[in-house]
């Protein structure tokens, strides 16, 4: 039972990204319905900044994942659940990249360069073009709704393991000191 837990690096990245998504998602919904105001410009910037940080952390996380095999799932887990978990995790990794990338592409297309934290200008990924920008806005929205569905599945599964199956799987993605299964 050596590697039954994710490494502390993986756990920290998981929780940072989860926390940032939980903040960035409702911020996106809220800000896009606001009338133009200085507050709106600020919130758009904060949204872009946290989104880009998520993108960077997601890249780190994929690098970690490429170099590590995640801890094995319980041997008695039904085959369908195992495939389900793998598919969800795979899609979540994809969306962690695709959602912020679509946001960045949208900003470039709409003619707004992303300046991280107001000081570090990031390159525009594509040339400014209003029509492309509007398509990318819809893409960002749809990828976000896919993300929402997958996160609900993911959290639902975690709670199911914790409270119905009581198999302690939740602790795999926790920083624990000392205690063992």
């Amino acid at each position, binding site marked *: 039972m050596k590697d039954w837990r994710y490494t502390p690096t993986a756990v920290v990245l998981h929780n940072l990204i989860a926390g940032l998504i939980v903040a960035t998602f409702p911020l996106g919904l809220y800000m896009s319905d606001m009338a133009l105001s200085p507050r709106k*410009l600020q919130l758009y910037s904060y949204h872009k900044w946290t989104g880009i940080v998520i993108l960077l952390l997601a890249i780190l996380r994929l690098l970690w994942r490429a170099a590590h095999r995640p801890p094995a799932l319980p041997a008695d887990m039904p085959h369908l659940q195992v495939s389900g978990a793998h598919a969800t995790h795979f899609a979540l990794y994809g969306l962690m990249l695709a959602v912020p990338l679509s946001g960045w592409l949208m900003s470039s297309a709409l003619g707004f360069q992303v300046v991280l934290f107001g*000081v570090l200008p990031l390159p525009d990924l594509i040339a400014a073009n209003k029509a492309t920008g509007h398509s990318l806005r819809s893409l960002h929205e749809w990828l976000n709704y896919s993300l929402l569905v997958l996160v609900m599945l993911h959290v639902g599964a975690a709670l199911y393991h914790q409270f119905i199956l009581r198999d302690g799987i939740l602790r795999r993605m926790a920083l624990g000191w000392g205690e063992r299964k």
Partner: protein
Amino acid sequence: MRVLLAMLMTVSTANTMAAVFTVPLNDKSSITFISRQMGVPVNGHFTKFTSRIVFDPARPDVSRAEIDVALASVNAGSGEADDTVKSPLWFDVKAYPTATFVSDGLKALGGNRYQATGKLVIKGRSFPVVVPFTAVPAGTSMVLDGVIPVSRKQYAIGGGVWADPSVVADLVQVHFHIGLAPAHK
């Protein structure tokens, strides 16, 4: 031969220098601006402006310029931004439809660089400005390019909730690019 060439060159230079440029070429002219919002440079432009310019590269002292910009023709990136910029807190285009630059002096700085002085009037406020610009021949016409930095605070453009320069920076760089054909003889 060399003398002839030199003479020809003198004549042709004299011809260009003798030309006085007064006819604005609308399709070769633009007035654009860059504001900074949360550190992000954002482009905009005006679609309607008129200029009355007499530009004589050989006689900067008798050259003069007056440029009127129809502020309601602003394009600030989106319909919502345009409406905001036309509203009373910003340009207040109903009360002050036009921004005007009028020169009161012009001098050569060497090469194709010149400098105009004059006053810039926006929202009924008038302040002196110094405007360095370049004049570059393009075929038979002349192209003037320069930048006027405009302080939002000085002209009360974007007051109230918009005053905070950490959201929209105080300085807006207004770039004029004006093509001029020679005066009809």
